[in-house]
């Protein structure tokens, strides 16, 4: 075990997977000599050289298209998109190509690419360095989407992503890249996809969150405790595949659900969770499901604290669900 922050855990894991598998390579903008704008790839270029740590021209479609070609050929590319907000030039390559290669070839051509990209707000990044648009990708059959919220999970999920046989979008909560540290296992600490984690046990209300919203949900749970409200916090970790059982189990225990995400509410991932609970856990619910999310506006610069869910909003929503029944 070593104490480190989330971006250090990613950096350390990238070193490890590149050491253990010569097929793994990293490509993206500024990932080589510069070590990445968030330093996630720091040191890789020095250790593995330009053949395996590839500084690319500024073209997301080029990065993902080339990564797909490498994967088809048998390499294991880990592509970095500098910010999720800049991924859209590659949207066609991701949703029309990467996600569909295995299917459209009848299984002849699987394309295993891992796409790492920082996402989310709270860093004063404005419209184009803050968004949380995971729902676009979760909606596409053939892609896996995971979001760590702790350094240990970052390592565990990244190890699994590189080991997987399917394309993976690995979303990195940049707001908590450095703001918290945790113990990270040194060896093979793979965390299988599709397993949520109960971050805090509780009995009165379930708070569902992921990524940078996880510490905020935990803070909300703390605020609820003095009121005698015992909140359970479930960290989804993996959006696709989703640990449906963990979501249902928690609500069967608490009877109340508060869903938290940074993304805008309408058609956000929370809508899928709410649908799941109404389809499969309706009779366990004692109160209407509530979503605490970003507003249905673009992500604002100066008013980002208005936009982003905070512990007070979450705690307020949780109290309401408890009062409702």
């Amino acid at each position, binding site marked *: 075990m070593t104490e480190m922050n989330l971006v250090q855990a990613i950096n350390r894991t990238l070193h490890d997977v590149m050491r253990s598998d010569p097929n793994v390579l990293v490509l993206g903008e500024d990932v080589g000599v510069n070590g990445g704008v968030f330093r996630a790839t720091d040191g890789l270029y020095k250790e593995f050289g330009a053949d395996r740590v590839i500084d690319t021209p500024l073209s997301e479609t080029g990065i993902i298209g080339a990564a797909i070609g490498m994967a088809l050929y048998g390499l294991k590319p880990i592509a970095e998109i500098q910010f999720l907000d800049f991924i859209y030039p590659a949207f066609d390559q991701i949703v029309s190509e990467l996600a569909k290669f295995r299917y459209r070839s009848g299984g002849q051509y699987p394309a295993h690419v891992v796409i790492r990209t920082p996402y989310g707000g709270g860093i004063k990044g404005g419209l184009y360095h803050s968004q949380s648009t995971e729902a676009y990708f979760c909606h596409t059959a053939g892609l896996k989407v995971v979001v760590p919220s702790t350094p240990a999970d970052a390592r565990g999920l990244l190890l699994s992503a590189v080991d*997987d046989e399917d394309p993976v979008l690995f979303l990195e909560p940049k707001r908590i890249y450095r703001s918290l540290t945790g113990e990270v296992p040194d060896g093979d600490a793979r965390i299988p996809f599709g397993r949520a984690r109960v971050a805090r046990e509780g009995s009165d209300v379930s708070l569902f969150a992921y990524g940078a919203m996880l510490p905020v949900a935990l803070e909300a749970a703390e605020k609820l405790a003095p009121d005698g409200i015992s909140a359970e916090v479930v960290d989804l970790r993996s959006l696709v595949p989703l640990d449906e059982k963990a979501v249902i189990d928690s609500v069967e225990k608490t009877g109340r659900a508060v869903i938290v995400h940074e993304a805008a509410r309408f058609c956000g991932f929370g809508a899928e969770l709410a649908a799941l609970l109404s389809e499969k856990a309706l009779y366990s619910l004692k109160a209407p499901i509530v979503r605490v999310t970003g507003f249905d506006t673009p992500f604002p610069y100066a008013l980002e604290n208005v936009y982003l869910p905070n512990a007070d909003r979450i705690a307020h929503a949780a109290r309401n669900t408890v009062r409702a029944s």
Partner: protein
Amino acid sequence: MLDAYRLMVLARATDERCLSLQRQGRIGFYAPLMGQEAAQVGASRALSPADWIFPAYRELAVALARGVSLRAIFDQLLGNADDLIKGRQMPNHFGFRDVNFVVASSPIGTQITQAVGAAMAAQRRKDSIVTISFFGDGATSSNDFHAGLNFAGVYQCPTIFFCQNNQWAISLPRERQTHSATLAEKANAYGIPGVVVDGNDLNAVYGAVSEARARALSGKGPTMIEAEVYRFGPHSTSDDPKRYRTDAEVSEARERDPIGRLKDFLIAKGLWSEESDRKQSEEVRALVARTFEAAEKASPLDPRSIFDDVFARLSPRLEEERAEYDALVRTGVLKP
């Protein structure tokens, strides 16, 4: 060369038959390549079996030249149980892993950056192969064309950009696709040689691709080749070219038919005769008809296969959806 000629004739006969089969409702759709046979066969003949092909959806003659059986082609057009891509795509979107023919898609130009990535991979593994992307004049306006040429220029990877300029991107003529004098000159902006070749001339295409391949293998990087051809047929069976071009233009282009041209050449060289041509033509037509009829008799796809290959393993969610489908069939709501 007689072998190449036969492939071109086979591709043409398949095209003609498929256009008629589509009108009869026996296949759902078809995108003919007629007019592009010499370009496709000439390029394919210059490649080695280990080279990787990244086709668009009009590369029937490339597949045939790679040794793909006509039956496998028809299985794909029909989407039957023998279709290697399991009925997942519209006709013409072939994929044959055993001959390094990467599965095509419909979005334009996306295979270009992928071919570059595969070449970068081959370069890293020190494999003595090239990758080649096939695309049309329309694709030279796509994001991936520019990204792909730029990447290939920067990394000097062993790839060939093979543009079949058939003069029409559905209804948009070549001169309105770009203001450039040629498509090949776009390569110059990326530090890559761009070559224009008469795509109706089998030998010229073969020579250009052979040279590009040799350059790539000797570490001198990528080449773009623009093969000038003409799309004799519609963009697809869903297209009516009379809305945007004249019959006179098509007739004029047909005077440069690559098949007629090669036939004349072979006869002039004393390698071929009208009599042998007639025989081959009959033999090929019979083969096409016979093979299609056999493919039509193949079993239909298992409907439950819809859930396969989304992921490497069936996800719990898809397992549940498959059970839902099974129950609908069991209770008679859906017919299997």
